[in-house]
């Protein structure tokens, strides 16, 4: 195995542990926002889409590259905005209580 592959494998394994650890104690109230937030984070695929957008010359490659960027961006932007909207509803509660 190449050094690069081994480093990638290390990163992969360690990230699994971090992923398990980080969300092990979540109140069920936050399950939906958490799912939505995680959904936005895998929108990082947009970086991959940018890197390969012009990898293949010609119309097919261009169209596929364009579509990859469109889908990736929709995932990122939509994911974060929807999560923020959900969480905004939790936030306004204490304000109301003081009225």
């Amino acid at each position: 195995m190449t050094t690069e592959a081994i480093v990638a494998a290390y990163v992969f394994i360690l990230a699994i542990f971090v992923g398990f650890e980080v969300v092990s104690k979540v109140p069920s109230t936050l399950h939906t926002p958490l799912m939505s937030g995680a959904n936005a984070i895998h929108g990082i695929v947009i970086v991959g889409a940018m890197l390969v957008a012009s990898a293949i010359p010609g119309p097919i490659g261009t169209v596929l590259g364009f579509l990859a960027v469109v889908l990736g961006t929709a995932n990122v932007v939509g994911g974060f905005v929807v999560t923020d909207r959900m969480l905004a509803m939790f936030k306004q509660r204490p304000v109301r209580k003081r009225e």
Partner: protein
Amino acid sequence: MTVETLIPVAYLIAAVTFILGLKGLSSPTTAVQGNRIAATGMLIAVIATFFAADVKGGVPIILAGVAVGGVAGFAGARTVKMTAMPQMVALFNGAGGGAAALVAILEFARQRDAGVLEFGASLATLLALIIGAVSFSGSAIAFGKLQGLITPKAFRYAGQQFVTGGIAAATALLSLVVLGGAIAGSFAIEPMLLIAVITLLALAFGVALVMPIGGADMPVVISLLNAYTGLAVAMAGFTLNNQLLIVAGTLVGASGTILTRLMSKAMNRSLGNVLFGAFGAATTAGAAAASAGLEGRSIRSIGAEDAAILLSYAQNVIVVPGYGLAVAQAQHGVRELADLLESKGINVKYAIHPVAGRMPGHMNVLLAEANVPYDKLFDMEQINPEFQRTDVALVIGANDVTNPAARSNPGSPIYGMPILDVDKAQNIIVIKRSMKPGFAGIDNDLYLDPKTAMLFGDAKDAVSKVVQELKKTA
């Protein structure tokens, strides 16, 4: 030192923000901040990527794609009703899966043209392609089911396992051919053709995987597909040798798996049971048993006036909100009702089933939107012992999560699912549009209980009528 050498540093910062973001999202006080931290990291990563050498020629395509995808994502996220959120999450998740699959296809083509195909990278590419495509089509079906475009019922036919299994086997076989070609360095069949067929098979597999699952299980499915997309992105990271994609994708894959398990646990089902069993298989027997039970027993229907009287003489009231309340946007009316009752000295609490609405936590979000105080919301374990001491349980648009058959009827498809013990209250008022069964497609014995009174109508209308009646007596 050029700008390009700083890109990995930007990626490292982004990776840290994603971990901090997920951590923040796990606690109510830090959730908003967590989401924004992760979004900032994402922005840093995207801006840094513009300086990468591979990107240079593609800037016009990328800017066009970002504009189209950004507007679509933003508009969709801003305009979606809170009730339709689960399917929106499914849609965005499918977009991510589709992007991962397209990245895999393009990177495979690039590596082939450059003549650098080898086993490890090709394996990662194929996994990214297959998992991403499954997530894309599976999410599309989940969206269709929740949106009502496709029947939410479990879709089953004879020999289904063989068809689904056949698709999986064909996908695996063709993948092995591609891998063999990558090792040998030459292909007997045009590899891009193989990739195209594998893509179609994976898309078909996603459809075959989700179609047989009933609408009530969709939250678990969306969560699972979310984890799938994470994994697909991580695999794309291996292909591109990009650590940030590996970290972010794996984080989501791992945390999504945990979340999926938490959700199935809330429904007292194993994940395997959700994916391959139960609802569809048991429905016939359960439906037969339920319809036999319906005969010879009658339901009791009341008007808003009687409901108001019943409520105003109560001391303890528990509101059981369900998806019907969400669809009718009745959460504001319900809060008004609760405020009125409390002004009469009546104790009002809300019982939130873990899967009330369409997703865990969905109902909390909706009630928070109507400014229902957080300390009035009780989850199932806390509230169940209190139903015995409750004068009126007001069930608004909730169905399957109150069905006593889950406790008592082993033939029922939802047998074993934890429910709210609404039937133990002294009186039960059920606000419901009709006797139509709920999302699981089964009848509810609760409606036949002599203690139960049915108030038929749209949740919002019915609640506002009760409010008006209460105001008259006040």
